[in-house]
């Protein structure tokens, strides 16, 4: 993080909550109860408040996820370029439906809102990496690199 003026941030004790939640979720795969309780204590917030914030954001899972998270865009530009076929191909490769995690815990599979790669539709992200101009046939190859 860029060092910043302390005065600006200390205005409100909650200012660091979102980065802290993200940090925990990133390191532990999800926000488990210990993490949320710990942060609630640290920020002097009730548990329900931390839970309320966490469950608002798509990138703050409160349930365990797979080691890699596949996020396929389901918005209009990708939809027009047959994202459905790509989704079908992932389903077949992994044997799981969107919203599920593979039995071996390697992949979670989600359909998400526009990821800003509409000029390379259909597109998806695996963790933080973007894959564009997808074809159903190319999916197996990409997934293999995460095996």
């Amino acid at each position, binding site marked *: 993080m860029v060092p910043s003026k302390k005065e600006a941030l200390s205005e*409100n004790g909650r200012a660091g909550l*979102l980065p802290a939640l993200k940090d925990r979720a990133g390191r532990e795969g999800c926000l488990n109860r210990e993490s949320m309780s710990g942060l609630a204590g640290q*920020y002097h917030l009730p548990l329900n408040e931390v839970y309320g914030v966490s469950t*608002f954001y798509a*990138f703050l899972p409160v349930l365990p996820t797979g080691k890699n998270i596949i996020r396929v865009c389901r918005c*209009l530009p990708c939809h*027009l370029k047959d994202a459905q076929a790509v989704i079908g191909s992932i389903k077949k490769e992994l044997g799981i439906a969107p919203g599920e995690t593979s039995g071996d815990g390697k992949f979670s599979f989600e359909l998400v809102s*526009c990821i*800003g790669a509409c*000029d390379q539709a259909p597109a998806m992200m695996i963790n933080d990496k973007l894959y564009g101009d997808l074809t159903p046939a190319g999916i197996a190859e990409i997934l293999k690199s995460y095996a």
Partner: protein
Amino acid sequence: MAEKRIVLSKCGSIDPQDIGTYIAKGGFIAFIKARDKMKPQAIIAEIKKSGLTGRGGAGFNTGLKWELARSIKAKAKYLLCNADEGEVGTFKDKYILSNDPFGLIEGMCIAGLAIGAQQAFIYLRNEYHFLYDPLVRAVGQVREKGYLKHMDIQVFEGAGAYICGEESALMNSIEGMRGESRYKPPYPPTRGLWGLPTIINNVETLMNVPHIINNGAAWFSAMGTGRSKGTKVFSVSGDVSRPGVYELEMGSTLRELVVGLAGADDLKAVQIGGATGNILPASMLDTPLSHETYLGSGAVVALNSGRDIIDVVQNDMHFLNDESCGKCTPCREGTEVMLEIFGRLARGEGHEGDINSLDALARAMAVSSLCGLGQAAAVPVLDSLRYFYNDYIDRINQSHFLRSYLGGELFKSEEGIR
């Protein structure tokens, strides 16, 4: 008409990781001029005179907004750059941040001088995480050059919520809360982040600032239309042969953009401004693009003659329903009810009453929702009803047929069981 690259003028010709290459192309001359030769009031006057308007969707006069924040006495003021870019079909800010982060930072440096902010944030959407480190490094290089003595810039990353692009939700998110919208007034320039005066500007808006300071308000306002000055950066996708980012003078027509530059043919319609954008039939291709007509975030999705408009609006509504913050009734419940209707229409289970329901819901949501998401969710629905009414009627007639047919089948098989 050809592209007119002003905002994008340095994209591709500098190394986005090396401030030296940006300075070699005339970078930070505007900032030094603003810092050493202009009073904050003069900067604001110049921006106001230029007619620069917000590029994030609402199109508010930028200088006017700055003036308001400047005029308020407060212990601190904030500058926020909105890099949440969640509007469906929009990727121009990503292009800018990837290719010319220094242009944005210079714009922010000048805005900071103008409004008197000591702290600024760039709110970067989580989906653009790969830009986080490069942006932090770019800010670091600017700081090393000594151009950030008056204000610090921190990159703040979102956590996956389209609504956090709405200015009040964005502030809630930075404050560590749920990214829900707030009612207005108060507006951010009077009461924003932590209750203090705050200016929120889109990436592209801020990119224009150094150019205006360098070339003058008159140069800028000579381009464009009555209320829309300068250029606009568009993101074009969908049924085109050359999808991508294009910068055109304000007031250029849809045809120039979608057909001329992006190479669409056989169009049925375009949607302008993302999932909450207008859906216009191909017969309106000669419409100029400006705040006075249609613009939004500058996302243009082309739809060819094979496309099903009801499927398109259903996809829009799916997105809006997923991304509604859930705070207010019309949007939280209305998008869900609409999605149920579109689902039935798509499955061939629609009926005439659905059109009235969609119309009544859209009209109520447009005027009673708490923020722009719920208000604008009505736009694609009302536009599709206006321009593609027959598609709805055809679908419903097909539904009647399908129902009677399936109903008969069902009846037969039930008889068979008995």
